[in-house]
């Protein structure tokens, strides 16, 4: 299994600042580091692969366009997450109707552990639970930050996070 390093605030901040100083390589590094995170969150909102892929493009184009407005005082990951969320929500509003999950994403023909885990995450957890997992595990946000993002309180987020992780662990390998 391919292992991944935790994304951390400092790395993302350095990349954004380098990019602001016209270092185009750092934009590529940002893309490589963050595109699965942007995709994961976009997919949890939009439920469709193509829409989530479109959102990756729009998010990185926006980062490219808005980099001059980024300042060191902002939290780097939060800056990118806010762009991701705003763009995903605007796409969702355009769709107007409630969206069902893309069958392609959750089809069980691929029985790899990874695919089963993703399917369980997307079908057995509520959207809020999914977001808490993605924000903490993938995006690396602290519980307190997640509570702010999701307009909730720390103890609720903590208990929901642990309950969701427990659910995923219990469902391990169960389709």
């Amino acid at each position, binding site marked *: 299994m391919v292992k991944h390093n935790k994304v951390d605030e400092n790395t993302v901040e350095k990349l954004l600042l380098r990019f602001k100083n016209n270092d185009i390589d750092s934009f590529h590094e940002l893309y490589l580091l963050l595109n699965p995170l942007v995709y994961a969150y976009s997919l949890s909102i939009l439920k469709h692969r193509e829409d989530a892929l479109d959102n990756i493009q729009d998010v990185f184009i926006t980062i490219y366009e808005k980099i001059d407005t980024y300042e060191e005082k902002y939290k780097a990951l939060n800056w990118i997450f806010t762009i991701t969320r705003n763009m995903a929500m605007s796409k969702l509003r355009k769709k107007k109707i409630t969206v069902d999950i893309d069958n392609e994403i959750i089809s069980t023909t691929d029985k790899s552990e*990874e695919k089963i885990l993703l399917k369980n995450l997307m079908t057995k957890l509520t959207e809020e639970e999914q977001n808490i*997992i993605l924000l903490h595990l*993938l995006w690396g946000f602290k519980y307190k930050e997640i509570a702010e993002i999701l307009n909730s309180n720390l103890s609720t987020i903590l208990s929901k996070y642990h309950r969701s992780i427990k659910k995923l662990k219990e469902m391990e390998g169960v389709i």
Partner: protein
Amino acid sequence: MKEKEIRDKLLNAYNTQIPDMYDEILLKCHKKKGKEVMMEEKKKFNWGLPFAVAFSLLILLSGGLFYNYNLNMKVESIIDIDVNPSIELEVNKKDKIVDYKALNNDAKEILNDMDLKNVDIDTALNAIIGSMVTKGYLDDLSNSILISVDNDDQVKAEEMRQKLVNKIDKILNTDKFEGSVLSQTVSNNKNELTESEALAQKYDISKGKAELILKVLKQNSLLKEEDLVKLNINEINVLLENKNNTTTKVEKQGTASTKAYIGESKAKSIALDHAGVTKTLKMEVEFDADDGMLIYDVEFETSTYEYDYEIDAISGKIIKYDKEKNDDVISNNNSNTNNNSNNSSSNSNNNSSSNANSNNTNFISSSKAKEIALNHAGASSVKNLEIELDKEDKEYSVEFIYNNKEYEYEINAVTGKIIEYDIDNID
């Protein structure tokens, strides 16, 4: 399963769904930025510059401009890219795109908001093919692409063909699927319309696709051009392979995907079931085209009848069938085609996970594991304590919250040694 493992597995699952879109994104960014820069320059334009200087510069530059025009604007090769989207690229001596156009609606969707002018051919290919993968035109089920190079100089055309094939091969053959690249050089005649140009105009398709269709028709005269023009390149590629062709001048890498189709043995059994036949004297199955879709043509004989079935290669629906009295029964040929031997009923991997029972192993107790972790953390009473034993890995995972920090321990379940630990601030 530990949280780190959950993270790794999720990231791996997401990564398999994301094609590399970086070049495409960069092109779109450049396009937008390009517009902005032009607007700024317009504002800053200084009309106060002396005319005389401008005029003399113009004279001086005109020679160079003409040279530059020749180098930058003169089209050296025309490249057709066909999948189902068909795109035509005009490329100059420096391998940069002079102009490009979408030859069908699918191609319009691909080119959407790309600005490829003056972009290097390699970058353009990355963006175009990346977009075709993202939009589902190229995937595991339909993996073929046709590249056709038109250049007056045959040697240059061949060099360009080679270069493009290598590039596309690299882009396509990722861990997601293997592509199949068909490629050809096409000739032109300045004085009259070539056969492929005429066919391209008649059906509004690319010259490259028309040339490929002519080659397929030469190989199999039973096929009809009006059926072939509606097929995408993967479907034509399947037909090319099916007819076991060795004579056409189409270079080829990889094999056409047939994963979208039901397969020969399924087509056979559909026809036999429908006919109520179990034993056959002769049996032939091959791909064919009918009204823009791929079909299986299944022909077989019994001692009394000859059967001919056309079966939709994707849905397995019987489109047409025909049954005639068998006039020339060959009584000495009794070698029945055994249709059951090919039953490729996909065996789902039923690895009834036989967990290696390690019951004999002496594990430390969960309370001992807890004690080890809490001692290490210097904690006495903790919140949200969770202890799990992974018998296979012989590890305890102990998680708890203490002093506003989240602790995660992995402890060897036999020796009690701490393998790894992680402490995260909650706020």
